[in-house]
């Protein structure tokens, strides 16, 4: 019996594990029932490369304009020991912050291991938590981790943890604009769930060290440009709802060892290259490996998972590919042809389809009656 770690390493093959960030974890919880995604993500398989190699490349490119603007805005807010950020916290959130120290936990040498960096972040943050009344401190780039399906995943440190009056706040800097008090709802939602990932990870870290997890506030600070300018503004966002969703989804995710037990021992997505830099395994064998792990495609995957185009292709003809609402409207019946045949009275429904069949047939009758009156 090999350990879970060894199995996952074999699945990943001879390459570096892909790194997690709050976005990938948030996306992971978006489709907790997908075994394929859970296995690939836990093993740290580079899904982007995998998808491109089997000829279903993902399109998650980012425009360099957006990256430049995002970086410039973040740099502006963080300049001079986060002077601008502090001004916002004081003026807009009315926090009474006297002296503040600033600690950047970004790896200095750059090749510190993640374990070491995590240990350092943990030591600093727990020490700060112990001195509840201590002076305010900004911790930039703390490395956090979160248990996902029984495995510890490190999170790209894309946040500032801010301690004030014994409470930590997660600060997220985003470059989408808030115009007349309103921002793109999708972007705010994404920022909130990512912030919730950090809050949860920090709470778990403190809890493990024997501190009160509630000392990490569920109010996160979101810093965005105001209106059409570069001027930053700060708002508090309550992420309690996102935390609840996240906790529920993480606990619902099948434990990875249970998933692995179901899979062939030889399963691997090894993308190790030969001398020419081309993976040694054929795309066909990787496709076969993918097919060995069950997926649960829904159109939301298109926005959140690199394998979406492959899984969508595989799901052609499934009602789920039309979206969750459509699947329900079609009585939860798996295949589109089946649902249609039942609706057209060409197929007797199975026992568990009887109830859905009645509505489908009524709809089918209406559709037939009406279509006879429409050309094209």
């Amino acid at each position: 019996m090999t350990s879970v770690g060894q199995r996952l390493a074999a699945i990943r093959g001879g390459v570096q594990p892909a790194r997690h960030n709050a976005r990938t974890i948030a996306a992971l919880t978006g489709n907790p029932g997908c075994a394929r995604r859970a296995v690939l993500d836990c093993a740290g398989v580079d899904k982007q490369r995998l998808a491109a190699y089997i000829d279903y490349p993902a399109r998650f490119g980012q425009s360099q304009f957006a990256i430049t603007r995002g970086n410039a805005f973040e740099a502006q807010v963080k300049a001079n020991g986060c002077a601008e950020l502090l001004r916002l916290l004081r003026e807009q959130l009315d926090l009474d912050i006297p002296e503040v120290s600033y600690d950047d936990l970004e790896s200095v040498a750059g090749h510190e291991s993640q374990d070491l960096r995590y240990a350092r972040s943990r030591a600093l943050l727990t020490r700060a938590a112990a001195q509840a009344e201590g002076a305010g401190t900004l911790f930039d780039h703390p490395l956090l981790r979160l248990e996902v399906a029984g495995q510890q995943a490190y999170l790209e440190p894309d946040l500032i943890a801010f301690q004030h009056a014994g409470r930590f706040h997660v600060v997220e800097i985003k470059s989408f604009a808030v115009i007349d008090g309103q921002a793109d709802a999708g972007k705010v939602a994404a920022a909130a769930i990512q912030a919730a990932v950090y809050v949860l990870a920090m709470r778990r870290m403190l809890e493990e060290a024997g501190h009160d997890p509630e000392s990490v506030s569920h109010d996160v600070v979101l810093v965005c440009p105001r209106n059409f300018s570069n001027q930053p503004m700060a708002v508090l966002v309550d992420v309690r709802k996102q935390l609840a969703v996240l906790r529920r989804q993480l606990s619902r995710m099948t434990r990875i060892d249970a998933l692995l037990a179901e899979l062939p021992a030889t399963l691997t997505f090894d993308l190790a290259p030969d001398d020419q830099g081309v993976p040694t395994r054929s795309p066909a064998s990787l496709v076969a490996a993918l097919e060995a792990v069950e997926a649960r495609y829904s159109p939301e995957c298109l926005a959140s998972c690199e394998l979406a185009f492959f899984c969508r292709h595989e799901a052609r003809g499934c009602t789920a590919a039309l979206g969750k609402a459509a699947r329900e409207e079609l009585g939860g019946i798996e295949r589109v042809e089946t649902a249609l045949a039942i609706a057209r009275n060409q197929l007797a429904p199975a026992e568990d389809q009887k109830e859905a069949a009645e509505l489908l047939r009524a709809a089918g009758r209406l559709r037939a009656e009406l279509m006879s009156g429409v050309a094209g």
Partner: protein
Amino acid sequence: MSTLTTLARAEAVVEGVAQRITTVRHVHLAKRPLVFIPLTMAGEANAPLAAMAGDDPDNPTLLIVPQPRNRDQRFAFAAELADIVIGYVDSFLDDVEEVTTNRGKEVRHRYADAPQLLVPNPGGVGFTRLFGRSTRFRRTDGDYPVHPSVPLLGRWLTYFTERAEHPGSSALVPMTQALTMHWATGQSPLEDAQLAAFMGWIAPPDGLTGAEAATAAEDPVTWPPAGPATDPTFDNEVLAPAMAAYDRAVATDSHVDRRRGELEEALRTQLEPTWRLMWHAVSLLRDLPAGASVAKRWAEDRDAFTNFTEQLDAGGFPQPRRDGAVAAARRLHRMERALTSYEVQRAYDDPMVMADYRLTGEAFVGDVTAAHPTRVDTSGKKRVLRPWIAVTTTDPVMVTPGTTLLSPEQPDGQKARVMSVTRKDDGTTAVVLELTGGMGRSLTPAPGSVPEVGKRICYTTLSDSFMPPGSFPSREETPWTHGGPPAPYEDSAPTAEDAREEWS
């Protein structure tokens, strides 16, 4: 999504081509709409990068902002766009019609036709809204003077976006939404948001199925996104180098025109495919016959247009950033009423829309199996004509005796009271109805006003009857719970601050 629409999606999957879900067209299509396709610079707050606009499919105007971070260039773009939009809007000001109101006692005027803006998707509406917001408060004097057409453009764009929120309005129409109303594809609503993929399902090129055409349409190289966001790969590989070359040309003052031309060509490649798709979609929609209430709703758009031009002529301030409490409540109420009557009108205009209500038991279609057209009710003081008819239907009937029903096929104002509902052994249901109204004044019904035996007819509980407007306090009487009366024009008078507002 209704079960019928979903079933149509299933059919589309199996047939390999989009399926009609209406018999008629429910949006108004102007003879000469203004197609407007905006593109923005990634990462910036609604910074225009380029746009293609025009009312002639063969003659689009391409506008570009060579350096979108440059404030002067943005306003130059706004002024150029103003020329197009305001020129277009003004072309409707010549033709006025008379409308009699108050039972013919009064006459008012409204424009015989009105401008219509077509954008590819809801994102295009969002751009229009924000661009209106960032231009309508600008001033033509002071620190940062802009061309007089810029704030006027802002007010017009705001007019269009406010209409777009009004159910049933066709003043500003996002094309994907118009298509969604009329066709079901074999893909998910999420994927329908992409204009090219949607069009792939409706009109796949020869030899391709809808699914294949839609997948091909997802390739941003052949089908660039319909905006306002651009394709990141285009940004990185084409746009960024071309923009840098332009910046260098400006810095060294050499070949500026040539570099600008190159940028223009690059951006044209991103807009032209969508331009063609938009006009293709226009012609597909135009092929559908208009629903009976479309003209009536368009008349409301013409009223709104007429009112807005009057407001502009009267001077006054640009639309406020946010409505005050009373204005917001009034607006919400108006929209709710508009939504209800829009839904009812569509069902009355279109048996395929009515079918959704048949499935839920709010309507049924059946054959008149018996009729007593001259039945007179003598029980009251006065003898009255109260014909009875029996309608037999295979639809599920959920109505109960005593309910009042209406029929889209019967004269306005004719009501049918349900007298009895009898389910038969063969699965059909017989409904006996008593008719009032719409039959003339004598005791014999006007010819054709009572459905005859054998007629196929629809009855429904849906009614577009007049809903009384809500009563709201005046602005000055805004209760303290809602912030009290706003200071006069507090929220709309543009300040010098507004006019100078940073736009970086």
